[in-house]
């Protein structure tokens, strides 16, 4: 799919953030990207099916009341659940949720999606073990190549900024996730070894930082690739030479996946 222009929707409601960084990242690759507020979908002015990629950004949608992401998810479900399911069942379409976007995909039942789509949540992104907002750079090891990670090096650094990022689920579902090889990125120590706190910033089970559904076309990731798109966004830019930021490779994979 090199050279083909994709239609990308960066979804918004009140309280989403980093839309501009995400928008700029897609623009950098000359994609046909636009901001789509959920109300436009509700009023029938925009249709999900018209896009190739849905990008659900980070932030504190609807104030993170009730649980992080739950209000965005409930509203999206009420407005366009059928369309969303159709979207996910189309293997050429992809959804990526970052941070709050990951929380939304979990609350929707689109992730972990061990058997495809679930009508009820199968997991949760809970309050961090530290009971604090964790805002720092973390290291991630790529666990497998997917259409979201194909171009990504084995070990990357990205920033996290969340209070509710501990991936939690039943032991049965966790086993299925591992069996299906749905983990895309795990938190690791700076040398690439097992992550203890603070390298696993939230106490996530099995150090899970990013997951893909069993179809391979929906990914949720807690760290923010759009905040590390350029080399100069890395805190060690004076010491380590990079051509691009580590988040760049996730967008590149997403756009050059075939």
């Amino acid at each position, binding site marked *: 799919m090199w050279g083909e222009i994709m239609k990308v929707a960066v979804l918004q409601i009140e309280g989403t953030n980093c839309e501009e960084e995400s928008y700029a990242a897609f623009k950098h690759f000359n994609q046909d990207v636009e901001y789509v507020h959920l109300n436009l979908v509700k009023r029938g002015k925009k249709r999900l099916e018209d896009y190739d990629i849905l990008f659900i950004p980070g932030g504190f949608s609807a104030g993170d009341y*009730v649980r992080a992401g739950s209000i965005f998810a409930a509203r999206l479900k009420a407005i366009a659940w059928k369309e969303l399911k159709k979207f996910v069942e189309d293997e050429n379409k992809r959804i990526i949720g970052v941070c709050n976007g990951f929380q939304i995909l979990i609350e929707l039942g689109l992730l972990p999606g061990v058997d495809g789509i679930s009508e009820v949540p199968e997991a*949760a992104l*809970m309050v961090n073990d530290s*009971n604090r907002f964790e805002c720092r750079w973390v290291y991630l090891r790529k666990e497998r190549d997917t259409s979201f990670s194909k171009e990504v090096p084995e070990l990357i650094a990205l920033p996290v900024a969340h209070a509710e990022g501990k991936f*939690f689920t039943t032991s049965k579902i966790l086993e299925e996730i591992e069996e299906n090889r749905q983990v895309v990125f795990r938190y690791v120590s700076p040398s690439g070894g097992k992550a203890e706190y603070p390298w696993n910033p939230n106490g996530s089970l099995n150090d899970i930082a990013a997951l893909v559904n069993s179809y391979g076309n929906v990914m949720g990731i807690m760290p923010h690739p759009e905040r590390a798109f350029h080399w100069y966004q890395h805190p060690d830019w004076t010491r380590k030479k990079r051509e691009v930021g580590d988040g760049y490779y996730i967008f590149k994979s997403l756009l050059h996946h075939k």
Partner: protein
Amino acid sequence: MLKATIIVRYKQGVDDPEGKSIKHSLELLNFKDIQEVRVAKYYEIYLDKPLEEGKREVEEMIRKLLVNPVIHDYEMRVEEL
């Protein structure tokens, strides 16, 4: 008028970091012998509906938004005011 009260708490066995922090803070205030602190959310919802219909609607609210069944248990009561 109906009043629905809903308490949403973590299931037994699910970690409650907020409860742990509060326990620690209470201990710093010299409260001793605290075994555990568990935090829950309490909702009051007032509805203008007949009782049975109201109950069904509150159950739907719980299912659609208030509870994530993987981590939460809940108690619900709906009464006429």
